């Protein structure tokens, strides 16, 4: 078990290296570089730089160096936690990102918990009450849930709330708490607002997971051990909960590996539509304004989150399923 986890952890730096090369290539891709945008920003605000200052800045950013040297500089700074300065906000990128990172995590985890709390019982109910009205209803809702892009759902809900009740359901905080420092009251306010984005982000995953759970459980319900259990006089509830459900949940756990990373990055579009202050809208803005070092920093954070999500699910799976644990050890 320990060796298996260690192996996965040792892989992280390798993955991070490849990702950082990719991200660096991406932030270099648009025409022009950081400095030209910087000079343009300065010019638009009325001040300008003379040639000597530009040359000094070029040296400072290493723009006179070949590309691979530039990459190593950038990577070195990343490792030191220095993500550069944002053009648009004129503040360190690290600060901008860490302000919003907490909300990104909270939102994704809330959606994750919602998914599991709803999907597993619904899947069990659907499978044990096969071909009843509720089962059909669940199946239909699942298909629609999977087919609806989450930003579309957000738009429909926002429109409905606005036109019916004249309330705007955007944002994660009431106005008075938006800029306030963290306090107990602010946390309560967050809890009041987070449930809707949580549902919107989690609904597609819930629909998919319910389907998987139902299908897995249906496969198990026909096994001979069920008859054996009934013959021994186990109550139906005990029988189902004790054996087939545990078997059916196992493959479900392996979906965490892609589901958790998907929640981190999938919330991006919903966050933009619903004006949620996580790192998604920040990335979008930085890409549109070509604030490339900020974009690069956020992309690296997303990569890291994806890696951590996969690692967590690997560990969870190994812990749940002795077959994996033994095989890899």
């Amino acid at each position, binding site marked *: 078990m320990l060796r298996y986890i260690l192996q996965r952890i040792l892989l992280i730096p390798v993955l991070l290296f490849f990702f950082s090369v990719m991200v660096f290539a991406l932030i270099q891709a648009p025409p022009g570089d950081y400095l030209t945008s910087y000079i343009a920003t300065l010019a638009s605000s009325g001040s300008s730089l003379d040639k000597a200052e530009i040359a000094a800045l070029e040296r400072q950013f290493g723009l006179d160096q070949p590309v691979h040297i530039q990459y190593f500089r950038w990577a070195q700074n990343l490792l030191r936690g220095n993500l550069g300065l944002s053009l648009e906000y004129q503040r360190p990128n690290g600060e901008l990102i860490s302000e919003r990172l907490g909300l990104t995590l909270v939102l994704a985890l809330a959606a994750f918990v919602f998914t599991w709390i709803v999907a597993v019982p619904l899947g069990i109910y659907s499978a044990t009450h096969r071909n009843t009205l509720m089962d059909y209803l669940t199946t239909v809702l699942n298909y629609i849930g999977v087919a609806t*892009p989450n930003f*579309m759902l957000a738009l429909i809900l926002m429109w409905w709330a606005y036109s019916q009740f004249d309330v705007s359901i955007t944002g994660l905080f009431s106005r008075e708490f938006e800029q306030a420092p963290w306090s107990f009251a602010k946390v309560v306010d967050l809890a009041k607002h987070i449930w809707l984005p949580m549902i919107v982000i989690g609904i597609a995953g819930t629909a998919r997971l319910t389907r998987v759970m139902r299908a897995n459980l249906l496969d198990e319900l026909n096994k001979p051990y069920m008859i054996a259990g009934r013959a021994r006089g186990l109550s139906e509830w005990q029988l189902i909960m004790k054996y087939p459900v545990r078997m059916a949940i196992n493959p479900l756990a392996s979906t965490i590996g892609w589901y958790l990373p998907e929640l981190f990055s999938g919330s991006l579009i919903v966050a933009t539509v619903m004006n949620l202050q996580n790192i998604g809208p920040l990335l979008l803005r930085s890409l549109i304004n070509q604030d490339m070092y900020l974009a690069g920093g956020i992309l690296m954070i997303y990569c890291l989150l994806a890696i951590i999500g996969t690692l967590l699910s690997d560990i969870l799976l190994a812990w749940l399923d002795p077959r994996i644990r033994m095989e890899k050890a």
Partner: protein
Amino acid sequence: MSIQSESSALEPEGIGGSTLPKPPIGEDLFIASQEEERISIASNWTLVWWRFRKNKLAVVSTFVLLFLALVVLIPGFFATHDPEQTDARLAFIPIQEIHWIDEGGLKPWVPGVVGKRDPVTLKMVWTTDESQKIHVRFLAPGFEYSVLGLVDTNIHLIGAVDPERADLVYLLGTDRLGRDQWSRLAFATRISMTIGMISVILSVVLGLVLGGISGYFGGWPDMFIQRLIELLQSLPTIPIWLALTAALPRTWSPEKVFFAITIILALRGWTTLAREVRGKFLSLREEDFVLAADLAGCSRSRIILVHMIPTFTSHIIATSTLAIPVMIVTETSLSFLGLGMRPPAISWGVMLQEAQNIQTLALAPWLLIPGLVVILAVLAFNLVGDGLRDAADPYSH
């Protein structure tokens, strides 16, 4: 897993929808073997078809997809206006519902629209007026368009009977710039659907080649391709796609952007299929018929193309059908955020950009219709894909 497909597939009496009369005792065996005979001589594709058509939802969805395909081929036939024609005075005209009955007979008409200037904002506000009737008919003449670049015609699916009033028919209302939504939707369908399909075709080609190499040859190419797949699959997709599309030069023509997006989508899309193909190759490699072909002196490419790939074509089709909606939703999301297709190109996502503002949406909820079309298309692809997947392996249960 869909509602119908759970009933186990090959109960003999269900095949082909033919119900056999209950045979007298003693003839059971004979009838059963006759049925078995029918199944055993049927080709793989016949079996797949028998099983697929039992899934009613999948069959209905197939028709939905065929209709969408028709729109893709000749959007001009469905359009009633030039999709780019703008007139700010005609902004936010509401949906005109088609009424079928008039003067006691089948005589379809749509209500006319009346504009009033809002005394405060001085904006035109349009409402439908049932007392004005604009009669419409099918196959009405309108603007010129070409069918697949072959024939020019001016016949449209629907249009005003009186050509003078043709400009007053806005079936799904108009947007902020007074563009006709119904017509734009037809052209958006063309772009969004083709983006989905082309990127899936690219993914299939890449997946087949790389998955095939990986599974058939093994060794270091396998090692390399598997690591590449793992790397690509652990990427955070949406942020990376956003960054990639943001890096496309603003000066590119819509056609160039179109192909760039299909390539970007395919870059990750091939990995799922490559894994599946590799698994198939790994298991098929050990089969007797492959050994037989090898001993009979078939070349490697012949073994792969003639003997191995046909055994899992149905799986590839099912998997690619299920991949199309993912591509469509991604393109829609990217365009919606302003980083995918850009105006003047029209796609479902580009149309939905108009629906980003909640105040506008409250005023003109019909701007959400392109989103409903996305849901419909994705639903249809998923149902057909599920049906195909269940039918793809006709010998399994």
